[in-house]
Structure formats: structure tokens, C-alpha cells
């Protein structure tokens, strides 16, 4: 996948979104003209209409801290089995976020990963039916507050088996905070991280620096993974909600 160096123009955002859809679902790319906004919208509504049919992950959240959660999201995604990863990738790393306390649930449910402080837990990717009873017991995570302001934060992915010959890398994760609730930021950042991990852009031992910026405009750096979403107040236009830069060597 080629990274973008150009400023985040509408053309560039459409191209990135088309690339994402084509990579996961070539069949959708064949059905729609992904170079146009309308074609992208039609492809997205096809994906939405598929509902619960594909593979998905349920994340249970007791409390939320962006940097801590970024780290655990990567740890979880790095542990997903290749077969499950392929299905989940085809479903656009679909994820539901639920309010709940993992500590209270561990006797009844199996989680693939639980944060060390018990603040969050992840189910393995699979058919939605597998998490039906968990979803019945819990409620959708409702976090309408804005992301609390914070300085740039270094997140260290714990060491583990690395692809041969791949040096440890440092990347920047940008999160756009303007007009964005915590609930929305979760969705955006989760897709960026999950896809980056499954595509091999994040490996054990890597470093991520989390930057909260009002908007991802101009060209902060070359982005390897970008979350494209629609503008709330500008019909027909797209924006970047979160993005991960190309790597720099860890000194």
C-alpha cells in the first residue's frame, strides 16, 4: 500500500478510502465506482446493510484512557490468530464497544485479551452470535464527552516475536479531536490500529506517539493507515479522523 505525502485533499481522501475498501472487499470495488463520493457512500451502505453477518469483536470498557487503550488495542490485535484476522479484516475490523466491568464478567465469558488494570477486555473476532449473550447483559458504551486534553504521549508496544529482519519502528498516531466525542474517537482509532496491526505496520516492541490535534489537515507526515469519515457539516466531503504515519527507526 502506498503512503500519501500529499496534503489531505478530497481526492486523496477518496483514494485512500477506495483503497481500504478494495483491499478488504474486492467484490464491493467491482460493484461501485469508488473514485466518487457517491460510489463510496453506496459501498459503505452495502457494508452497513450486511449487519451482523461477518466477523466482529466486542470490547468491554470499564473506564477509558486513550494511551492505555491504544496500547492494549495493539496487544489484542497482535494476538489474533491469522485465520480469524483474515475474516475480521474482510469485515473491516468491525468492533462493538460495550460498557461493562471485565472483572465482573470473567467467570461467565472468555476474553482474548484483558487490560492489566482490568479497564477493558476484548473478545476474539468471530460471528456476532458468539457475543450475543454478552451484548444482552451490557449496554453500548456511551461516552459523549470530548477527549480530555493531553500532551503527546509515547506508547510502547510490549516486546514479543517480531517478523524476521524488521527493525523496531516508531510511528505517530494522529487523532482529530474537533467535533469528536470519545465514543467516536474509539471507533476511528480502533480501525486505524487494528488494520495497521493486521497489515503488519505495527509489531511488538514498536513505539507509537499519540498526538491529539483538532483536525488532520495539511500533511503532518506520510500516513500508512488513515480513517476516513464524512464531514458532519459539509455534505459530500470527507475528512481524516485518525491516521498512523510511516515508520521512523527507533534510535
Amino acid at each position, binding site marked *: 500500500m502506498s503512503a500519501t505525502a500529499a496534503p489531505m485533499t478530497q481526492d486523496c481522501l477518496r483514494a485512500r478510502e477506495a483503497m481500504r475498501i478494495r483491499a478488504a472487499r474486492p467484490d464491493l470495488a467491482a460493484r461501485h465506482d469508488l473514485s466518487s463520493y457517491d460510489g463510496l457512500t453506496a459501498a459503505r451502505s452495502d457494508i452497513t446493510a450486511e449487519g451482523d453477518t461477518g466477523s466482529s469483536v466486542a470490547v468491554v470498557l*470499564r*473506564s*477509558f484512557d486513550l494511551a492505555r487503550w491504544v496500547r492494549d488495542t495493539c496487544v489484542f490485535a497482535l494476538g489474533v490468530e491469522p485465520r480469524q484476522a483474515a475474516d475480521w479484516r474482510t469485515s473491516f475490523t468491525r468492533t462493538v464497544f460495550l*460498557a*461493562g*466491568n471485565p*472483572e*465482573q*464478567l470473567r*467467570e*461467565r465469558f472468555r476474553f482474548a485479551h484483558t487490560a492489566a*488494570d*482490568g479497564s477493558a477486555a476484548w473478545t476474539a473476532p468471530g460471528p456476532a452470535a458468539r457475543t450475543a449473550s454478552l451484548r*444482552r*447483559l*451490557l*449496554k453500548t*458504551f*456511551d*461516552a*459523549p*464527552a470530548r477527549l480530555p486534553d493531553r500532551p503527546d504521549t509515547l506508547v510502547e508496544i510490549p516486546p514479543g516475536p517480531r517478523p524476521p529482519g524488521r527493525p523496531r519502528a516508531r510511528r505517530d498516531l494522529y487523532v482529530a479531536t474537533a467535533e469528536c*466525542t*470519545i465514543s467516536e474517537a474509539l471507533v476511528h482509532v480502533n480501525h486505524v490500529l487494528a488494520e495497521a496491526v493486521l497489515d503488519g505496520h505495527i509489531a511488538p516492541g514498536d513505539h507509537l506517539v499519540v498526538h491529539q490535534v483538532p483536525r488532520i489537515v495539511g500533511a503532518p507526515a506520510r500516513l500508512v493507515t488513515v480513517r476516513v469519515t464524512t464531514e458532519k457539516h459539509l455534505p459530500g466531503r470527507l475528512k481524516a479522523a485518525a491516521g498512523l504515519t510511516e515508520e521512523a527507526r527507533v534510535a
Partner: protein
Amino acid sequence: MTTTLSVAGPRPRPGAVDRPRVLLAPVTITPSKPLTPSHLKGLLWTDVMYRATRPLADVAYRYSHTTYHATEQTLGFWEFLDRSRGATDYGDLTEERIGELYVAFRAAERAPAQALLPYAEAVERGWVHPVSTRVLELWSGHYAALGLHDPGLLRHQPPGLGLEAVLDRLTALGMCLDQREVGGPVYLDLTRFGLPLRRLVTADGRPNYLACALRELIPLAPDFDELVLLYDHELDSDYQQLERVLSALGPRVRRVSVGRVPIEGRIRSARQGGWQGLHAGTLIDAARAEHHEDAVRLGMRLYFIAVLGPGWQQSFRSDLLLQYVRRAARLLDEAGPATDRPTLSDRLARHRKDHVYVDPYRLTSRLLGRRGAAPAEDLLRGVFL
């Protein structure tokens, strides 16, 4: 995070006597409308339970309107009246008229949480809007006419814990999920018992009636051996949650659900109105036009407890109610002294299973039994009149 689930026995009391301690805690009725047949049924049911259990145990009957004024349906009603009517004398409004205003409130758009704050704060200091004082005064009259024990309708009875304090207690019990930090709600979390997450405080800060019930009952529970929760069967899932929390504090918790009374086959909510001619005031007046006070009191209990029973299958029938008032008058004529019978306590104690409280349905139904001898005066006086 570690959680603790302390299962303590009931708190010991100084100079303990042998009698078990029982707390009756029925769900309260929002003082914003007339008392419907469903409400009457619950009140009569609780009253018979209270008076029949008293000879056998130390019984407390907790029924605090103060506790539940803090819920949105009450605060919202008051705010709606003041916003839409301004200064008004509520002192001579009828229950029906106030009920109509309540129906209008439920049909109107909700006020923002901010608008309810002054009311919520005033309630904590004991303030009551005159519209609800008026309703409670009218209800007090019905209580007196029906011989119902008044658990303090007009008294200031604040709950023992504030909202933050009760959330702290729940957190200590490992039963609270507080997501206010991300702008979210506070939940009662009994998921470890397989019960679904239940919201207690909305994201914009409004506590619901379950939060109010916990503020009241958590501090009371450790002082009792048995805690009886009486409620509409429609609230069953919430009361299962309440039972879980309160059981962890010591007492044996008994849930007694009492079915509502359908009107012409339909169970209606009071927010929809439809009580014309069918509320406590009119029913009492109609019965008293033909019968003396004791017959009305006993007849109401026979009908609402023994005839309608714990379920919700039979629709309300005024004619049948009056028929049982007549039957009550005959029973009262036949009643005699309890000579050659076991003591009243022993006779009452039969109407129990493994619980301390006396079952009102079993006790009241006995009065209608064909084989039964004439009812004893001490039972009628002590429990039914």
C-alpha cells in the same frame, strides 16, 4: 481492581428480644394523580400484611414520598406546572384535575436536566411542591376512610444516604459502574450474577427511582431479619436487582409482586389517564352511600385481595366490589368473640410459608371460605377494619 462482596448477617441490636424484625417496603405512588384500582390494590395488600404481621414481629413500614420526589417524573411535573402555569393556588384542585395536568405533562416535551436542578436541590432540604402536598392531603383522607395505616404521607422522611454516598457503597460492594468521567451514565452492575447492567443515573445526571430506592434501603437493610419488597409485577427485573443488592447486606429479601388491575381488559399506566369514576375517592363515596364504614373497609379488602388475587387476569368491576361490600356487612353481623380458638398470633402465623410476614391473600381468602366459622372479632379489628 479488587471487589468485595460482603455477606453480613443482620446487625445485632442491643437488648435483643426474640421477635424477628421485618421491614415492609412497598413501591411508592407518584403524588400527581388520583389513586387508581391498581394503586388501591397495592395499598390494601400492604396494609393487611403490615397489620397481620405486627403481632408476630417488629414490623417497620417504610413508605417515604420524600425519597422518590427526587425522580424525574415528580420533579419534571413540578417544573412543568411552574413553567406553564406560574403562580397558582393548588389548595382547592381535585385529584382528577391534578391528574389531567399530569397527563398533559407526560405528553409534553421533556425539560432539560438543568431546569430540574433547583427542584432536585430543594427536595433534599424537605421542600414539596404544593400540588403534591394537595394530592397527599387528599390521599390522607382516603387512607383514613379505608382504615389504612398512614406511614407518613405528609412527613419529611429523607433517605439515609445521599446519591454520591450510595454510589460509594455500591462501589465498595463491587456493584457500581460509574462512567461519568466520559460523560456517560452510572450503572448498577450485577453482571457477575447474570443480571443485565441497569442504569441508575443518566448521562445528564438524573437519578431514577431505582437509585432512590437504593439510597433509602441500603442504610436500612442491615437492621432487619426480613425485608419484604412489594411492587407491580411489571417492575420485576428491577426488583430482582434490588433483591441482589440488599441480600448482600444481611436480611432475607422477599419479593412480593402484586399484579395491576386491568380496566376493561387493559392494564393502563396512570400517565394515560382514564381513571374517571374509577379512583379511590369515587369508589369510597359510592360504597359509603349504601354501607357503614366497617363494611366498606372489609369489603374493599375482600375484593382487592381475595377476589382479585395476586395476578392481573380479572378486570376491575364496580358491581363486584359493591357485592363484596354487602358480603362484608353480613360477615360483620355474624362475627363473634374468639372463644375456644388459638390466640390471634397463632391463627395469623398459619398464613406463612418459610417467611416471617403473613400472606395477605391466604389470610383474606380464609374469610370467604364456605366451611369457615363466623369470623373472629379480634382478627377483624386487628387486621381488616
